[in-house]
């Protein structure tokens, strides 16, 4: 099989989407009622798609593994959502948002998709406000903005530190409205375990009811995977415990290409690892970089003293601090993109300047922000010659109003008060830019299967800018799929309901049952987490923030060994036909053990550095990522061939019409 046409429309970039929409086929309202659509996942992409399609008249079945659609991990996004509204009058435009996103992704995204994302961004804000999403507002009652990494304008809309929650609850409310009308049938605590392909088209799924263990067949004319990213392959990440690749991986095994799986985002501001018991990592919103300054000591002896607990951050004099982001990147300072900030932290820590007992942490310091805000407040309240303490008190109030929930969260986890001592942060796995390959209509290489949100690969290239994930999830669900899906479903107005008593469903169900039986019957000695942790360590050490040829080859061998060991020695307690959380985990880890190998293969073949993919062999003299556009300006789309080691790569050559490829610089 070769790679399908990307279906990027002709015409100038700013007209492509408009012209494309005008030429897509339509399904009339009466016919929509005869068409069934399955949506897997209820995050921003899934909930917005399911709600929108049901509003238009399609019959939707919505699936999530959580106990309620409202709990999908989009809920945890903190900082904000970008939109080219230009409310602050600081020069923003669709073009600038497009430019920042494509450049931020190190020119490895599909240009036309990125433009469309920027183009529909403003509608998202209008839609969410109409739904009653309580965005932050200024005293005049208008919407407030803040700035985020990789941009020099303020285009990020937010709802305190819980923007993802508020946007998701908005989409969830739209979804539940359709559930109430009977246009969406909700299947929570259900997990998709296989895709059913009939006559070359996706026509349904096999799902497991997680409460009863019952294996169910669901037919539909189209299947939408809105299943998020696969960051949990690293075991420790900022993802939710249940976030997984299973639905996407099953679809991959049925013929959907997996694109750029090695593109992983390591987020610079997370709470450092504290011990071996750790089950997940917690993000501290990127919005903190608006006001927090990142530093390590200048002198190695100070760093040693801090590591050994003899000194604290505040004991280090101002002139002995190295604000390394401000030093290296004066134009963007603490607001460089995530990949750049993460690598810079790793560089300082590798050089011995880390600031906690593991040596793997840097400071994020609010002292100067507290002072700056305090002085402004003193002026506002006409306090003449305010004392240092007064300024601090006033400033702390402002910082607390802006970031209070994050500071509390930090204190809960670490036991340290971030108003008194600078926070300690370190990079952690956060997001995966890679995902299932889709064309411009968001259709995968399996016709009638669509992939939305983080689960697809298309918009962020090799690095995603902050506040762009929420934008993409909602863009895909509200404003792309409602148009593009009709073009394909126009062929199905006379198909009638998809029967589930066919050989294809039999085979898929047998496949699912076979795998479950296999897992249950190993009856080994080690719990699932044991293997997951081992996989995660290999991935983090050898396919994490920095990668090299030797390490990746070793990783592939090690992952194969862990996989072999897993299938011999894993112990899954309980029964298959009951509520069984270990069985759920086992199935997901089994898939991660295959995906991990493919990620390493992808990282190995891409011997350039780009965005979050940093190959040590390919860097500039100053240690920045060095792309090789003549060799690697393409999407690597992998095709399953029966075994993780045998995947075949196809290339989609990236064409850049609106922007010239150039070396990324934030200096």
């Amino acid at each position: 099989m070769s790679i399908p046409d990307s279906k990027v429309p002709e015409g100038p970039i700013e007209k492509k989407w408009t012209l494309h929409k005008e030429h897509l086929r339509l399904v009339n309202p009466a016919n929509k009622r005869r068409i069934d659509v399955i949506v897997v996942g209820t995050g921003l992409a899934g909930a917005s798609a399911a709600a929108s399609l049901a509003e238009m008249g399609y019959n939707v079945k919505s699936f999530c593994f959580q106990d309620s659609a409202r709990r999908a991990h989009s809920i945890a996004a903190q900082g904000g959502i970008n939109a080219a509204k230009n409310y602050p009058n600081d020069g923003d435009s669709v073009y600038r948002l497009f430019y920042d996103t494509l450049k931020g992704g190190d020119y490895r995204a599909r240009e036309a998709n990125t433009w469309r994302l920027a183009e529909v961004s403003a509608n998202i804000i209008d839609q969410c406000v109409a739904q009653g999403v309580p965005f932050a507002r200024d005293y005049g009652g208008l919407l407030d903005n803040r700035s985020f990494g990789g941009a020099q304008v303020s285009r990020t809309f937010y709802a305190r530190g819980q923007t993802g929650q508020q946007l998701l609850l908005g989409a969830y409310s739209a979804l539940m409205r359709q559930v109430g009308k009977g246009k969406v049938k909700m299947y929570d605590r259900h997990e998709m375990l296989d895709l059913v392909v009939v006559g070359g088209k996706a026509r349904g799924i096999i799902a497991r009811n997680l409460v009863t263990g019952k294996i169910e067949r669901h037919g539909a004319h189209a299947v939408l995977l809105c299943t998020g990213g696969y960051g949990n392959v690293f075991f420790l990440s900022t993802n939710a415990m249940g976030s997984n690749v299973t639905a996407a991986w099953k679809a991959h095994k049925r013929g959907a290409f997996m694109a750029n799986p090695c593109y992983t985002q390591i987020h610079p501001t997370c709470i450092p690892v504290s011990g071996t018991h750790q089950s997940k990592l917690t993000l501290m919103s990127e919005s903190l970089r608006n006001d927090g300054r990142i530093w390590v000591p200048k002198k190695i002896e100070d760093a040693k003293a801090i590591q050994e607990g003899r000194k604290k951050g505040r004991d280090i004099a101002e002139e002995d601090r190295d604000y390394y982001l401000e030093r290296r990147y004066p134009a963007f300072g603490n607001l460089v993109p995530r990949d750049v900030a993460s690598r810079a932290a790793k560089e300082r820590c590798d050089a011995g300047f880390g600031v906690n007992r593991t040596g793997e942490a840097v400071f994020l310091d609010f002292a100067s922000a507290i002072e700056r805000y305090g002085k402004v407040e003193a002026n506002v309240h006409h306090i003449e010659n305010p004392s240092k303490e007064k300024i601090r008190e006033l400033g702390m109030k402002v910082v607390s109003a802006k970031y209070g929930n994050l500071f509390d969260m930090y204190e809960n986890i670490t036991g340290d008060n971030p108003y008194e001592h600078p926070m300690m942060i370190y990079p952690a796995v956060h997001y995966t830019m890679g995902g299932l390959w889709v064309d411009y209509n968001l259709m995968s290489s399996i016709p009638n299967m669509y992939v939305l949100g983080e689960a697809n690969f298309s918009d962020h290239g090799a690095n995603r800018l902050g506040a762009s994930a929420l934008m993409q999830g909602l863009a895909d669900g509200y404003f792309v799929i409602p148009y593009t899906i009709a073009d394909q479903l126009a062929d199905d107005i006379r198909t009638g309901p998809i029967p589930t008593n066919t050989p294809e469903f039999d085979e898929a169900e047998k496949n699912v049952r076979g795998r479950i039986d296999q897992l249950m019957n190993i009856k080994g000695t080690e719990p699932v987490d044991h293997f997951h942790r081992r996989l995660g360590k290999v991935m983090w050490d050898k396919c994490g923030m920095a990668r090299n040829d030797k390490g990746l080859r070793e990783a592939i061998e090690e992952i194969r060994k862990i996989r072999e060991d897993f299938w011999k020695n894993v112990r899954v307690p309980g029964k298959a036909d009951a509520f069984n959380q270990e069985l759920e985990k086992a199935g997901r880890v089994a898939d991660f053990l295959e995906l991990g190998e493919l990620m390493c293969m992808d990282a190995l073949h891409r011997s350039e550095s780009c965005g979050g993919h940093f190959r040590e062999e390919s860097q500039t003299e100053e240690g920045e990522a060095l792309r090789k556009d003549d060799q690697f300006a393409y999407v690597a789309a992998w095709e399953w061939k029966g075994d993780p080691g045998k995947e075949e790569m196809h290339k989609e050559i990236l064409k850049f019409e609106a922007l010239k490829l150039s070396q990324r610089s934030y200096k």
Partner: protein
Amino acid sequence: MKLTLKIWRQAGPDAKGAMVDYPIDGISEDMSFLEMLDVLNDKLIREGQDPVAFDHDCREGICGMCSLYINGRPHGPERHITTCQLHMRKFKDGDTIYVEPWRSAAFPVIKDLAVDRGAFDRIQAAGGFVSVNTMGNLVDANALPVPKAHSDKAFDAAACIGCGACVAACPNGSAMLFVSAKVSQYALLPQGRPEAKERALNMVEQMDAEGFGNCTNIGACSIECPKDISLENIARLNREYLVAEMTKES
């Protein structure tokens, strides 16, 4: 740390449950409460026993999936956090800790500590929304200014994570704090006003149908709420409901 856990075990919705003792050792104070349960489950699995079922997902206090009644309080002894944010440094070596599921007729136990909170989704589906479709041509988001004070209050109400601690805390098993938070969010915003009456009536009707108890202004719900949702919202719901009931066209 060495602890004694007393955990509610129940094989299924219709099975009889009981408290079971589990001694546990080697717990570090940096662990979260759920990581402590991970350690217990790891041990149980290795010993060939059935691990304890409990709901959890984001483990950062926002998804609302974790629950647990710990030493007689929803989400444990600390205020304004969820169980997943509770850390073992809040306990002492040698402590005995009681762990139970949410107990409410409207939240049946699925297994051990996991309960079915589907009633909340059904209440939401009855009216917890603004009836606006996805539109290709909306008015600009800034066309209608919203006073910051209203918007902030709406946010405070919207911060609800739907975990059900309010119901678990209430001696009556009432869901008024949950329902009032959603009703308030929309009632405070101009976008939500047009259907404010139907919303209040429909959500309350569904709440009653689900078998939640009545509110008698005890206030335990708000005290135990991990997101500090104020009782003021219940007052607002009562107001909205009363106005809706008295002015409804039959």
